[in-house]
């Protein structure tokens, strides 16, 4: 029989800092039937233990600096360190994202499975709303996250 794996969706960012809150907007855009396959957790600062708290796959959603506002970034967690120079998560992390993932990979009992989904932002001011460019990327980001949730959820076969 095929089991549905629970996927953990880790949402970074601060709703009160403009485009930094795009992760929450992306989660709100996920279809309810797909959202049911995932547990959603707002993590504030992503730390290695956030990636170790469950055995299943993890999707990290965050705003990023670098690409044009609204553009999506979709990277395997294992590959984040290779793109770290060009894509910088905007959220207030205590440690750089590649370090968080690198430490988690060493401490995890098995391979770390998951994706980093970023939405490029433009405005980071306290109290401002999402910029029009970043808001325009939310729908596509939600669809992308849905695709990965479905894929991860169906990715295990239990005898």
């Amino acid at each position, binding site marked *: 029989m095929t089991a549905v794996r629970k996927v953990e969706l880790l949402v970074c960012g*601060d709703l*009160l*800092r403009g485009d930094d809150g795009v992760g929450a907007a992306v989660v709100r855009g996920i279809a309810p039937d797909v959202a049911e396959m995932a547990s959603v957790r707002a993590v*504030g*600062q992503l*730390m*290695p*233990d956030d990636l170790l708290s469950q055995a299943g796959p993890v999707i990290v959603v965050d705003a990023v600096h670098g690409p044009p506002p609204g553009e999506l970034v979709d990277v395997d967690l294992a590959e984040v360190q290779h793109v770290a120079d060009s894509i910088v998560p905007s959220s*207030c*992390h*205590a*440690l750089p994202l*590649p*370090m968080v993932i*690198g*430490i988690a990979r*060493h*401490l995890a009992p098995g391979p770390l499975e998951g994706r980093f989904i970023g939405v490029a932002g433009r405005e980071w001011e*306290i109290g401002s709303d999402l910029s029009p460019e970043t808001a325009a990327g939310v729908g596509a980001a939600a669809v992308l996250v849905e695709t990965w949730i479905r894929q991860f959820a169906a990715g295990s076969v239990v005898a």
Partner: protein
Amino acid sequence: MHESGEIDYSVRQLTRVEGEGRLTIQLRDGAVAEAHLEIFEAPRYFERLVVGRTGDEVVDIVARICGICPVAYQMSAVHAFERLFAVALDPEVRRLRRLFYCGEWIESHALHIYLLHAPDFLGYPSAVEMAADHPGLVERGLRIKRLGNRIVALIGGRAIHPVSVRVGGFSRAPRRAELDALREELATALEDALETVRWAASLPPPDYTREPRLVALRHPTEYPMNDGRIVSTDGLDLDPADWPDAFAEEQVSWSNALQARARDGVPYLLGPTSRVVLAGDTLHPTARAALEATGLGDELRTSVFRSIVARSVELVHALAEAADQVEAYREPDLPLAPWTPRAGIAAWATEAPRGLLYHRYQVGDDGTVEHAQIVPPTSQNQAAIEHDLTAFAPRVIDLPHDAATRQLEQLIRSYDPCISCATHFLDVRVEGR
């Protein structure tokens, strides 16, 4: 190399510090002439953002200056307003604020000791490589940090940029049962912290000593966090609101952060080392015993690289005090005391994990801020860091660039600088030889 015989030595991007900066060392005829910490992270204009805001709004805004030490910003601000408005706090609110601050010290110190500074002593480029060989060490640090975050979240509503602090107290005080749930974890973490002190004391520091001027708060009966007078190793004794009487900020051409110096121009050192030296007699007995067992009391004052021991002792203090505060807590009768705004100067200083944090607000008749000054510990430590770099660099400048960079960065990391706070930092460059 310049025609003048000057050579620039540069670390282009400092790593394992909070924020972005660069180190440039200028050599003249083979000798180190100057060392500059170039803080190029953009100014953040928080002092302008709070103009026109009420005290409660300021407390929420300044929490966003830093994701590591938001409690410190909130505490300096809220105490400043409460003093001006003559607010009478419920004693249990005062207890909660110390517990809140303990939570921040625990998460910040654990992060720095285990994930930022330890790799220097063990010869790893970062905590990632260290985690491969020493997973238990990294797990211990993460475990302690998590508890600190949990305390901050429990009292502040969330771990990052807390939201419950209000002028007069808290918007919500936790229930007794919520704090009781921390007891077991606090006991385990205290054992972890005591092991941290023994481990940190065993780490060999590079050979470099000096006699810095140390500055910290000091309180007659409690280890300095929210309250106390500003004291120094050379006899200063000031009300915390009177920081400008002894210190001043100045703009330097190579940094987006203002630098603070004593009025006599001498750099000074803030942070765990200063607090342990100037207020060690008020450490929790468990922390004092842990410090005495290291036999490093005198060396802490003269070796900047021993700051990891001072920070570890404070980790013990924060956990032991947190356990005591949890034990003694009763839900406050008045979690939010009433107050009436008045015009005047609201000023106070508290002890952030990295050192003294001074806030001063000029408040108008309507209770809103007309002018603000926020002096974070990193901008106060910056001159001392440059002074130490100038003195230490000749010992390493002839090493291969990578080796020299590692030791210079280790020195800078000993201060646990937060560049993001100060812009309101490392890339290393050597210029001239």
